[in-house]
């Protein structure tokens, strides 16, 4: 299985000299199974450069798995050139919108309405197929299979695990590991406050264990690491994103083989990212059992 990062930036495309090495495109990951099946995780602006590489091998069939429908994960879809060309087959998978009661097709079609884009979804020439996924539903894609799990974000977000011939990769999409909404202060709390804390923590512990069981032992763990702990606890709690420090803890707990930090904060320069990685190595000295820690970088190909 091969993985190519096509977009690693969070929130908004951030081109320019400061981001030229790690890249300014928003989230898109190309995955190729051993038999060459094309699986695309998210359709941020990084899907446009991917589309250009596909033009030499038309017609194509591909499966696009959308983690969630915030702009930075879908904004490239109207520019995914194969959808305009007859003979291609594009199969899109994603979650139901429980608040507005919309299928994945209805949600995505809206960004191609008259006000936003000149071509309507109904006018696309490729064969378009949509699947609104249930949690833990597995989709077979040739010799690979893709299974999802719900993550914690301000909109419904699926993390995806792709497995092929004994190798696996897990991508969180955007995810904030839940915090207890009650303070932990055993010495000064009355019985009811303590109960509130312990009860909420039991939900968190159960959910984290389910996620860890799902991720355990993956060869590549690609995780939203938008912030540092310091940034997170100074005004970013509840924004739906993870931290570098927590990603390291989780990768260790999941016994992942390699950890890829992604969803780089849009104002963070290449230099900032590298300084940050160096400081993490100082603060959390890697042990021999640790996964490799790698900053996801646009264009880099990984062979599992």
């Amino acid at each position, binding site marked *: 299985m091969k993985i190519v990062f096509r977009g690693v930036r969070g929130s908004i495309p951030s081109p320019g000299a400061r981001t030229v090495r790690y890249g300014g495109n928003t989230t898109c990951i190309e995955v190729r199974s051993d038999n060459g099946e094309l699986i695309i995780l998210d359709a941020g602006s990084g899907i446009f450069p991917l589309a250009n590489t596909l033009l030499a091998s038309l017609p194509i069939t591909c499966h696009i798995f959308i983690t969630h429908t915030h702009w930075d994960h879908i904004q490239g879809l109207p520019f995914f050139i194969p959808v305009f060309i007859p003979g291609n087959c594009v199969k899109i998978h994603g979650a*139901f919108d429980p*608040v507005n009661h919309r299928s994945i097709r209805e949600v995505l079609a809206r960004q191609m309405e008259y006000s936003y884009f000149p071509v309507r979804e109904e006018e696309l020439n490729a064969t378009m197929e949509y699947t609104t996924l*249930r949690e833990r539903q597995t989709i077979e894609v040739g010799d690979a299979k893709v299974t999802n799990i719900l993550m914690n974000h*301000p*909109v419904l977000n699926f993390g995806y695990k792709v497995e092929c011939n004994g190798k696996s990769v897990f991508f969180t999409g955007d995810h904030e590991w839940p915090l207890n909404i009650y303070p932990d202060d055993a010495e000064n709390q009355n019985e009811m406050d303590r109960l509130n804390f312990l*009860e909420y923590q*039991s*939900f968190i512990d159960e959910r984290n264990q389910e996620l860890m069981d799902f991720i355990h032992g993956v060869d590549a763990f690609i995780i939203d690491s938008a912030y540092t702990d310091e940034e997170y606890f100074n005004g970013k709690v509840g924004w739906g994103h993870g931290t570098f420090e927590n990603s390291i803890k989780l990768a260790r707990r999941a016994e992942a083989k390699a950890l890829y930090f992604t969803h780089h904060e849009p104002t963070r320069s290449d230099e900032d990212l590298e300084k940050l990685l160096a400081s993490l190595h100082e603060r959390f000295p890697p042990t021999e059992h640790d996964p490799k820690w790698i900053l996801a970088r646009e264009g880099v190909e990984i062979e599992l």
Partner: protein
Amino acid sequence: MQRPGKKILAQVKKMPPFPITRRRILVMTTDVNCPPRELLEAIHTDPILTLHILRQINALEFGLAKPLSSPKQAAVVVGVNIVKNLALSALDQKPARNSLLPEEINRFHQLAYTTGALARMLAHKAKLPLIQLQGIQVAGLIFSFELLAMKRLGDDDAFSDFFSNWKKGSLKGTELTMSGSTFDHGTLGTAIAEAWRLPEPLHASLANQRPDTNDEESQLPSPYDCVLMASAIANQWLLKVKKHKLNLEEKFPESVYGPLFDPKGEAAHAIHHLWTEFASDPELS
């Protein structure tokens, strides 16, 4: 008794949350940094809003691998913002045609809130697993939901009878059956629980049936026992008959009664604490 059809369930689905909850949540959500704790606790006082969120979360098309039994659990699994937006969508519901009188709303709200909070405390006292407590609180909160639903459906006589009996103190413990009603207590609840895919103990609570899975040989009270007993205590407490003997021994076997309720008055103390808390909240009281 006839079984409620889809049309009736659709009407129940359209029930609006209590006006007081609506006001509180609309005000607090004007602040984008509204603390999740305040929001979730406000939701947890309203049986209609709580049920609305659980119905949406557990809906087939949403496709959760495992049904959830409380908005707090949902906040951990799918995120607080989704729970908030589901709550806001419920607040968009138009007021019901057969609106409740303010007095009726108040009484039902008190009964629901008190039953829920007591059920949780009793379950904790009975040493049931922490992870079950919120579900048990919600089960208590929605225990008498179908009474409200019948009012919504226009079964005014049955509803009035219930409140009239309640005020007179002639409802004993768990006797919530309404004579002359279109559906008996539990029939509508069963239909709601099945259609909305509610997990235990919520299903048992609405259906007013001991769950099949309950082990009769068990020495521990079941979640449903806690809810049933909480309902009995709340009914009597809200009639302000603090010294009234509850006669719980007659209604529950010793194995259930023993761990939950002791003659030294610990439970009574807990109820008093709860009531003080409830009464000191200017909005809820």
